[in-house]
């Protein structure tokens, strides 16, 4: 028998984007142990919690369809428990040139899930002769993954984009259910934002009207929900294929003018020359005797 077996026959080349099938429960045992240890910690009366709480995005995210496309909006506060972890995080994620996705829930989950699906869409475009991705494709990929994880991937998403079939907005829940709507809000500030949408939304708005309504809805979340705050990000995706990502479209919580208005002592801002120079001398710093001139270069042994 030949010593050189033909390995390629047995090792079938796997398709590049193979998604694992079935449910993955690898971390359940680990999670149960962490919960148990955390309870023991709490019972023993120590003040610090065992785990840092997952950074959630609290959040107000919205999406709506207008006459010539979709407008997505999000606030920029990320919370870890009751503390603000990031004052200006980015919640509108890129999926494809014509598709963007807002994410609420656990920040890492929304970030990585959208990155994963963005890469899958990219590969699909490469495999299908570069035709434009459809929003429903992204929706299906996202919901299949989220359902597989039975809600443990805590990502609540507002998916919006424009494709050959027109503008679309979907909402996707952590357990994998989806709904296709003309306007939607998600996150802890969703009720505040939805109240603005329900009073103000009409079919076939212009771009200015759509953007204005989205800004008002996010501001309602920023000011009425404690899990949302800081700035408003807006993303417009038009039917003609152009997009406009407006990061910090509204910044109602900017503290710079307040900081600048503080009267600090003049002693902190002295101009040079305030103190008279009597004498100056310069002595170069020597490094214990060894300089570059002392180094001899020898070739390496090959």
């Amino acid at each position, binding site marked *: 028998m030949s010593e050189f077996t033909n390995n390629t026959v047995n090792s079938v080349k796997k398709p590049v984007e193979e998604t694992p099938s079935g449910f993955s429960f690898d971390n359940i045992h680990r999670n149960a142990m962490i919960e148990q240890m955390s309870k023991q910690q709490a019972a023993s009366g120590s003040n610090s919690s065992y785990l840092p709480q997952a950074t959630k995005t609290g959040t107000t995210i919205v999406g709506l369809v207008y006459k010539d496309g979709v407008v997505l909006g999000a606030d920029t506060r990320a919370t870890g428990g009751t503390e603000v972890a990031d004052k200006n995080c980015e919640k509108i994620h890129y999926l494809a040139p014509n598709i963007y996705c807002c994410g609420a829930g656990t920040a890492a989950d929304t970030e990585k899930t959208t990155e994963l699906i963005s890469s899958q869409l990219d590969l699909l475009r490469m495999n299908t002769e570069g035709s434009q991705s459809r929003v429903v494709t992204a929706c299906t990929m996202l919901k299949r993954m989220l359902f597989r994880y039975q809600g443990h991937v805590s990502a609540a998403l507002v998916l919006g984009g424009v494709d050959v079939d027109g503008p679309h907005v979907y909402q996707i829940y952590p357990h994998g259910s989806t709904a*296709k709507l003309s306007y939607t809000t998600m996150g802890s500030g969703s*009720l505040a934002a939805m*109240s603005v949408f329900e009073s103000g939304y009409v079919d076939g708005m212009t771009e200015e009207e759509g953007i204005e309504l989205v800004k008002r809805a996010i501001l309602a979340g920023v000011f009425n929900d404690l899990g949302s705050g800081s700035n408003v990000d807006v993303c417009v995706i038009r039917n003609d294929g152009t997009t406009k990502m407006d990061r910090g479209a509204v910044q109602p919580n900017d503290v710079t003018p307040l900081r600048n208005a503080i009267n600090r002592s003049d002693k902190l801002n002295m101009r040079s020359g305030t103190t008279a120079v009597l004498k100056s001398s310069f002595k170069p710093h020597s490094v214990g005797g060894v300089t570059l001139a002392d180094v001899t270069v020898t070739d390496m042994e090959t």
Partner: protein
Amino acid sequence: MSLSLSAGGSVRAASANSNASQRTRQPIVTGTSVLAIKYNGGVMMTADTLCSYGSMAKYKDARRLQSINPKTLIGGGGEYSDFQAVTELLKRNALEDKCTADSLYDEDASEECAREVWNYLRAVMYNRRNKMNPLWNDLVVAGFSAQGDSFLGFVDKIGTTYEDNYIATGFGSYLAMPILREKYREGMTEGEARALLEDCMKVLFYRDCRALNRIQIAKVTKDEGVLISDPYELETDWSSAAFITPKATLDGDGGW
């Protein structure tokens, strides 16, 4: 067993056989949000006429806005029987005031103003809470104070009180309060105030599962006292294209 409202039930069981707890643990028949707003003529309040039995829309003509005396209007969400008990208590007090007034010819002197009713309710609610047997309500008190300026206050089932130019209870605090905060101005006209409240009630009907589009609006003014409207239906709009065009067609993506 004492029948008074503030007694809150006896500490020991009523009889040797009944071991049943006498404390309210959960509301059974409930009303949802109450909204109220100050305007240039006084105070306006609104609530729908639904009392739910869990998820059933059982009583569609419940009156959740009540007049106590010509100066005071109260609205209540939460357990309807507790609201009825509170209303009865306040009306009984008002009647006693009237009958035992120093001078029967001086009608104004004996009436409790809205602020007094609000403070009294705080005492009642907090007292019941301390006995771990609350009156399970969110109450909104509207009217005029003794000095003659308009008053609007809130009391909840644990005795928290709050006074402001606009109040929203229950689901209204999530859905209506953002709108009220954005649109409220000092000295609105009656028409503006009513339009604002009706817009909020519409949003609540769309998004609160326990709301109804049949509402009552009430106002308290200095000259006319308390006026509560008859119930009427709000018009709601279901004509959005997304609702009309069917999604589950072969051409489209099925809406999923």
